[in-house]
């Protein structure tokens, strides 16, 4: 099925290490170590969690998905807020355990449709992650300069873009998928049906496009702060963004659009380490944060669409938040390809070719910046 961005190729089966699933909860341990994105673990809700469960929360903020994977592999952490480009690696590496959803009562019908059973956290029918929230990689522009509202990514990709030299792009190998999304619409001959399932030819084409873009790029961003200052400081006038980043500029001249080609996006899910020494606290945390209020608090704090749709009904502000971030707008997200780790097995269902894996993407990405 390719209706919602083609990500729900549920039939995919991959060899993954057999990690036992927790059958029932026991005594709470004393602490839980969490690797998370900035803003996911804050005293505003951890204090209450600790009060309720007795589990002290130790947070470690990670900057990139790679760092998250690395940190999880140290075995020091119980829980991680993995994005789609990390989750598959963690699952396949045997670093996380399947989640017994029975032990997460807050994971219920309220979880928005688009975040259930995704390939990047559900494998071979087993669930490995409990969703937290999601967002799209949109096109943001400075309306003072970009006076004609763009509807296509072409202003960001084409060499003759009127904004050449003022374009900001995302700085990670996964950004290759953005090129693939663009090619999917503009170079149908390449036959790309899923931006995370690229064979070598398709990858090469994407890299060529990225190299072309490199010449017109003012900078690449990895840190949100850098992205905001790039727009605010006038270095960039157009490029990849998140809704929250646009919001944080506090300036109406910055506008955004989800272009007609669609876009990539990210969705994060809690995962529990296979080596967790505090599985009970870990389950408690995952459950606690899936509850509408807490999940909403995280989503609000970070600036994304919450996984728990029930949050949107809790207050007017919540409703406004959900509206702003299109939380329950599956139509909106149907055009969004959530980050997934590329693997050799083509997840678009092709079996006649080998797809390029994430390592190849990483190596290819280096060539973009030369």
């Amino acid at each position, binding site marked *: 099925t390719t209706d919602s961005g083609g990500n729900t190729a549920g039939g995919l089966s991959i060899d993954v290490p057999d990690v036992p699933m927790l059958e029932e909860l026991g005594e709470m341990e004393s602490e839980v170590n969490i690797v998370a994105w900035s803003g996911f673990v804050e005293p505003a809700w951890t204090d209450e969690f600790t009060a309720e469960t007795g589990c002290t929360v130790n947070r470690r903020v990670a900057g*990139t998905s*790679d*760092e998250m*994977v*690395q940190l999880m*592999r140290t075995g020091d952490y119980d829980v991680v807020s993995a994005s789609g480009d990390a989750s598959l*690696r963690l699952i*396949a*590496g*045997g670093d996380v355990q399947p989640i017994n959803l029975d032990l997460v009562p807050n994971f219920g019908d309220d979880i928005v449709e688009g975040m259930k059973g995704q390939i990047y956290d559900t494998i071979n029918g087993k669930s490995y992650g409990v969703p937290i929230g999601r967002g799209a990689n949109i096109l943001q522009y400075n309306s003072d300069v970009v006076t004609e509202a763009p509807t296509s990514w072409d202003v960001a990709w084409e060499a003759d873009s009127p904004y050449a030299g003022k374009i900001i792009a995302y*700085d*990670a*190998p996964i950004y290759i998928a953005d090129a693939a999304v663009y090619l999917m619409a503009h170079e149908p001959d390449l036959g790309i049906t899923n931006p995370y399932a690229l064979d070598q030819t398709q990858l090469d084409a994407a890299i060529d496009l990225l190299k072309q873009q*490199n010449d017109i*790029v*003012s*900078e*690449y961003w*990895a*840190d949100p*702060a*850098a992205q905001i*200052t*790039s727009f605010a*400081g*006038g*270095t960039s006038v157009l490029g990849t963004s998140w809704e929250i980043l646009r919001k944080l500029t506090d300036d109406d001249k910055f506008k955004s659009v989800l272009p007609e080609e669609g876009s990539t996006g990210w969705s994060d899910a809690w995962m529990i380490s296979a080596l967790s020494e505090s599985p009970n606290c870990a389950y408690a945390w995952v459950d606690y944060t899936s509850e509408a209020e807490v999940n909403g608090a995280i989503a609000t704090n970070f600036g994304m669409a919450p996984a728990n749709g029930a949050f949107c009904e809790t207050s007017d502000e919540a409703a406004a938040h959900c509206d702003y971030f299109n939380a329950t707008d599956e139509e909106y997200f149907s055009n969004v390809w959530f980050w997934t780790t590329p*693997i*050799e097995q083509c997840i678009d269902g092709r079996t006649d070719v080998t797809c390029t*894996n*994430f*390592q*190849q993407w*990483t*190596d290819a*990405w*280096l*060539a973009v*910046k*030369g």
Partner: protein
Amino acid sequence: MEGRLSQIRPSLSSPHPTERNTMNRRAQLSALLALPMLWLIGIYIFSLVMLLVTAFWVTDPFTSKVKPGFTLRNFEQIIANPAYASTSIRTLGIALAVTVLSILISVPLGIFMAKVASPKLRAILAVAITLPLWAGYLVKILAMRITFTEEGFFNSMLGPLGISGPGFSIVTVILTLTYLWLPYMAVPVYTAIRQLPPNLFDASADLGAGAGFTIRTVVLPLIRPAIIAGSIFTFSLSLGDYIAAKFVGGSTQMIGSIIASNINLNPPIAAAFSLVPIAFVVIYLVSVQRTGALERM
């Protein structure tokens, strides 16, 4: 004085010291070095070696888990992808440019402080060049961002004069790294210039040399060890940096960026590629060690 020092300094390498003497000194020396060597070799070098052997290991392409083994594939990959070579050369160029720029700033600064400034101004300047050391690495990089962004401080001040800044580019990376590591060059250079015997300046003038000639033929050769000592910091710290490139480099990619982006995902290739900066640094250190500058850092 030199002679006297060398007289007093006991020498273990001399062929006929008395037995008792040698034993004693050996024991003292071992006592001094045991702990530091245990630390540096037992922890640091051991860790480095453990990391570097992984350069010959393989990574599972799917899970990105490292498996022991022996392969040269990582090196082949580095050679095959020209991005590695071009990034290495670019980074080397940046590190050298930072070093040269630091020298170009530090020498006049040192001469001004040591030979022109009044004692009071000298004290103020001495504080002024060390203070930025404390402002925080990230803070300084972000400050450079505000300075050099398109509508930032630099362009808003100098724009009216028709001067426009370098934006976020390799030039800004060089300026930022210079800004970060300058004190490590300026302080030793200044100290060295201060310690030059004033008589040498007199002697040079006495023999007819003007200030420029004296600086070129007397000052620079004599402060060379200090310059080299400073350059170890400016060169190696620049060589390994990637955060500056990330924040003010625009699309500039450095060795550190590549290692950082691989270190989690594909440690063997990161390890293999770290041999490049390690080689640069070690070659540099060994070649300057001959000049005795290491001891004078």
